[in-house]
């Protein structure tokens, strides 16, 4: 029972972590919360469903399709809703937040219109492969989800700290104007960031579809809120914080159900936020001036 719940918790936590990574990346560079991230995640899941069940594509191709579509969405998000608001006089710093909320409403209703309101099944033979260890069954998908989340975290950390593009990104995050004076093409960097974050949302979407076999137009909302809770918990704009926060939330939700009352499951994220804001407002891994992101 304990082991099984541990596996459940880690799976859920890894998914939360991947979603939160996308949030944290955009926040780290642009300093805004991308409210459309949950919906981009949902679109990624739907692309997975459509390509595998309707078009019958193999899974790896579905992954690529999902990454491409969400990447394009990320580009459009930046180009149409974020860039026009950036650096203009008289535009409130809340304006980009509001415009991403608009995008999230648009995407949710669009997919509602196209795919209908209910849950869509995600049929994939890959999701059926399982390993039995003693009395517990572990699905290959669960292992893959955990592995992908770890890989993404390590990959992002290395990319941010070692590569030129990563350094440019951090410079942009530090100070947009200075970075551009120093020869960083900040427009390109910001676009790249939003595209990468969105593509990670797409990956998370397809993984959730496989793990839980349920994809619906409303799935983005709750995932988005959880992602938000996690980056507050782990520290805004912090990659390690997103990962740790995701796992903490996934595990605590699962164990609350296992040993307590399942009715309080969704409350735990917000109870945690209250405590973290009181005790350590910058988040577990955050510092007063965020660094190392």
């Amino acid at each position, binding site marked *: *029972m304990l082991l*099984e*719940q541990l596996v*459940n*918790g880690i*799976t*859920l936590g890894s998914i939360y972590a991947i979603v939160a990574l996308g949030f944290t990346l955009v926040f780290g560079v642009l300093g805004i919360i991308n409210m459309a991230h949950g919906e981009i995640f949902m679109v990624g899941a739907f692309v997975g469903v459509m390509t595998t069940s309707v078009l019958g594509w193999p899974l790896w191709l579905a992954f690529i399709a999902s990454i491409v579509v969400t990447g394009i969405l990320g580009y459009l998000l930046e180009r149409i809703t974020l860039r026009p608001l950036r650096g203009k006089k008289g535009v409130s710093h809340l304006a980009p937040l509001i415009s991403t909320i608009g995008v999230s409403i648009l995407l949710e*209703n669009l997919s*509602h219109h196209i795919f*209908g*309101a*209910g*849950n*869509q*099944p995600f*049929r994939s033979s890959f999701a*059926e492969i*399982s390993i039995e260890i003693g009395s517990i*069954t572990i*699905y290959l998908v669960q292992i893959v989800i955990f592995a992908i989340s770890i890989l993404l975290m390590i990959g992002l950390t290395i990319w941010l700290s070692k590569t030129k593009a990563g350094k440019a990104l951090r410079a942009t995050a530090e100070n947009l104007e200075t970075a551009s004076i120093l020869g960083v093409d900040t427009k390109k960097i910001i676009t790249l960031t939003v595209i990468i974050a969105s593509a990670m949302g797409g990956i998370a979407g397809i993984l*959730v579809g496989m*793990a*839980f*076999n*349920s994809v*619906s137009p*409303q*799935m983005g*909302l*709750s995932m988005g809120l959880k992602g938000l809770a996690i980056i507050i918990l782990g520290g805004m704009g912090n990659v390690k914080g997103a990962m740790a926060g995701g796992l903490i939330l996934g595990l605590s*939700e*699962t*164990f609350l*159900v*296992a040993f307590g*009352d*399942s*009715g309080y*499951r*969704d409350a735990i994220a917000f109870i945690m936020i209250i405590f973290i804001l009181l005790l350590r407002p910058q988040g577990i891994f955050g510092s007063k001036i965020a660094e190392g992101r």
Partner: protein
Amino acid sequence: MKVLVRKTIGIMTVLMLFILAACSGTSTETGTESESGDNTEQASGTLSAKIGVVSYLTGAGAAYGEAITQGLKLAQEEINEQGEVNIELVIEDSAGEADQALSAAQKLMNDDEILAIIGPTLSTEFLAVAPEADLNGIPIIGTSTTVDGIPEIGDYVFRNAIPESLAIPAAMEKAVERTNAKKVALIYGNDDAVTKGGFEVMERTAKEMGLEIVATETFQKGQSDYNAQLTKIKNGNPDLVLASALYNEGAVIMDQARKMGIDVPFVGGNGFNSPQAIEIAGEAANGLIVGTPWFGESDDPKVVEFNEKYEAKFGKLPDQFAAQAYDALYIYADALKRAGEADRDVFRDALAETKDLEGLLGNFSFDEIGDVVMDVTVLEIKDGKFVEFE
């Protein structure tokens, strides 16, 4: 308590009458105008009426509103084609929220041309809207509202949805009879009046039947991961799982349960009874037992025809909610014919007298308080199809 409520409502009605009387001076003019309008229509032979519909069209449960409005539109088309009455539907969205449902319904109630209301979809919403409709003297019918105490709200409140307190015990008795179940586990959505009401009926029935409850778990609408709850249920080793869930969540729960190795039958409430459950869960849906008035695979020519027409028009098979909505509009049309005029009070009286109306769901009558009189069929999903439970 109930007496007290009745009395308060009574007093409020009297007060309302005074207020109405005070206002009548201004409203007479429009009143006569609309009456003369009715007369000309009657002269031409068809009786016209506007019916307000409040339905759950956007949000997590929009699938229900979609089925309901599609059922209504199909019925409307057929009824208007027959030519005896002409029904116009005015559809409003409730978004699954009680306050939105109420404001949508108030908008409809304030329109004098609206004869009666169908909906809202969820019992939670209906419980907010119905007392208001009753006070305003506008007939209202619930097509998907299954909790206890709906028609008891007032004289103008009706339903044609079979209550959970009828459907669930019937299904549980048959399931226990066949499987010899001793231990049961419960899982239910704790944020909705229907699934909560269903759970209460399940728990009560389980206790009455002397079954041991090994686990009681909850979930919320739109959740996608049920593994934690199901692992707990699995460890209790139940012989039956009683799942008070709407099909959208219920089907995913069954899928995850089967993957985890919970192979026992599931007993569900009204909200679980939909071909969509099979669509979503596939093979995992086998072994679901539900009590319902609606049997989509029935060879009753009325049902077969309805299935064909519905699929041709909307591209998918109808579920219980579409069928109940379809029947509800026929019940309204029938009452309207008997009433002979589009007047709310005359219409209500005619509606209350509905008896032995042959609908999709079988022979239909209202009892003295406006609740359903109907037989329950117990169905089970076997090899990816709903069949009658043996």
